[in-house]
């Protein structure tokens, strides 16, 4: 038998924040395209700008910062990458650092947990609060939960369990209100008791976020707390069936609330808060966004002024694409009869009209 070593077609080395070390990296002439670079997930590197387009955001490895604001609002700065700690955390799509990090840990542990519902949820900011409440709820449900974490889990058989526990605790303590709290805790319980609560977590979060979004009088945190208490009770008494029943009941309530929202009931008055993006001329769009607590496109002046018009529009376009991907409601702060020819706002509107959006009859929204 003979083995010939194949030639290396590409080799990449990176600084911590993803800037390629050219002196150590190489690529064969005419080698195949490779879109799996720093962090390993699909991304497109723009060789001219040196920016990398990940699924949700663009990244500048020169400065180690995202170029758009964090859709998950995880850190004080919306532009911070990998939580400011690239040796510990990954963020391979420009989304959530902590949940992705936990996801990888779960793969190691082969715990079945799906992240996709929460990651794709337009209610994510509520989910963050919900998760924090969930964690509190479990604790409120029984103080022994903490004992479970602090005492029993330390007796876990393998180093993986221990490492996972430490990771979960670290996430919980570093990010009170972080989205991973509930999930990490449930997975810990799963690994300890052989349950699959982690499976139900995303469905629970989704139902509760639906609920919270439609009943603005109750905070996501309070609702998460309720859910946590319910889950703990289910865990200790009737097991998963009870949890499933709790979810079903709350989902039903959420559906009722949605019907009320469609009928124009005041209980759904602030439903547009999450998942709404405001477009318009300055200063109208800022005022409207502040009033309804909605999202806007924001690039700091210093960065904006350094960009060419093409780069500015490229970043603007990506913001619109992400907005479409999230399925946001689109509120027009400036009505059509006040749109200035030649403005970015006109360009944004044309882009969205080309994507099939129309202006609602009251002129305030873009609808499909």
């Amino acid at each position, binding site marked *: 038998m003979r083995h010939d070593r194949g030639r290396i077609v590409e080799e990449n080395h990176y600084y911590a924040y993803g800037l390629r070390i050219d002196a150590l990296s190489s690529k064969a002439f005419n080698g195949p395209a490779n879109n799996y670079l720093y962090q390993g997930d699909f991304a497109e590197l723009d060789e001219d700008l040196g920016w990398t387009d990940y699924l949700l955001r663009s990244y500048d490895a020169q400065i180690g910062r995202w170029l758009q604001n964090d859709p998950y609002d995880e850190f004080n700065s919306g532009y911070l990458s990998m939580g400011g700690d690239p040796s510990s955390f990954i963020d391979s799509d420009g989304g959530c650092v902590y949940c992705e990090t936990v996801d990888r840990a779960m793969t190691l542990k082969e715990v079945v947990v799906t992240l996709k519902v929460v990651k794709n949820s337009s209610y994510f900011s509520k989910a963050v609060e919900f998760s924090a409440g969930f964690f509190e709820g479990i604790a409120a449900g029984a103080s022994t939960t903490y004992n479970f974490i602090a005492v029993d889990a330390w007796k876990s058989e393998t180093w993986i369990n221990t490492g996972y526990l430490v990771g979960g605790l670290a996430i919980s303590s570093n990010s009170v209100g972080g989205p991973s709290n509930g999930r990490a805790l449930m997975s810990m319980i799963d690994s300890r008791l052989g349950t699959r609560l982690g499976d139900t977590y995303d469905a629970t979060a989704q139902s509760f976020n639906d609920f919270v979004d439609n009943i603005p009088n109750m905070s996501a945190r309070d609702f998460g707390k309720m859910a946590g208490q319910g889950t703990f009770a289910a865990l200790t008494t009737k097991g998963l069936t009870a949890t499933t029943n709790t979810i079903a009941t709350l989902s039903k309530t959420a559906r009722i609330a949605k019907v009320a929202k469609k009928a124009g009931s005041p209980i759904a008055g602030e439903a547009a808060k999450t998942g709404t993006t405001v477009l318009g001329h*300055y*200063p109208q769009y800022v005022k409207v966004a502040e009033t309804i607590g909605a999202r806007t496109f924001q690039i*700091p002046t210093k960065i904006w002024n350094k960009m060419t018009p093409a780069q500015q529009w490229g970043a603007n376009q990506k913001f619109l694409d992400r907005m479409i991907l999230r399925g946001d409601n689109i509120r027009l702060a400036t009505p*059509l009869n*006040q*749109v200035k020819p*030649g403005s*970015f706002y006109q360009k944004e509107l044309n882009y969205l009209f080309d994507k099939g959006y129309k202006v609602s009859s009251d*002129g305030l929204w873009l609808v499909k």
Partner: protein
Amino acid sequence: MNKNNEKIYSFLKSNGFELIQKDTSSFFGDYYDIFTNDSFQLRFSSSKSFETVDIRSSNPNDNWYDLALVKTLLYDEKNLTKATTIEEHKDFLQEELTNIADLFNDRNYLTTKKRLEELGNERAEQMFPGVRK
């Protein structure tokens, strides 16, 4: 206060206007400066590097109108979709301040307002035909 506009601001001040409100955003270099002469207000603003001027009566509940529409009204221009630069706005203000003031005096304001609304709608139709649901 925006430095590029110093010349036009001093022109306005010498014509009885005063700066009554201003704001600068941390994003995109957006800003606005509002001047008034008690009869009407002028707002200089930048939205994502697009600088422009708007006008409204001194009633803070009234709508702002693009100064380009006032120019269209005065000059009876037909092409409403042409972009107007900030320099064109400044030149227009300096040349036509008296005529603009006439349009916004008590006697003419209601007619002016109606015409500006019509022109705004017409411009929207020209820029975005058939986009209403």
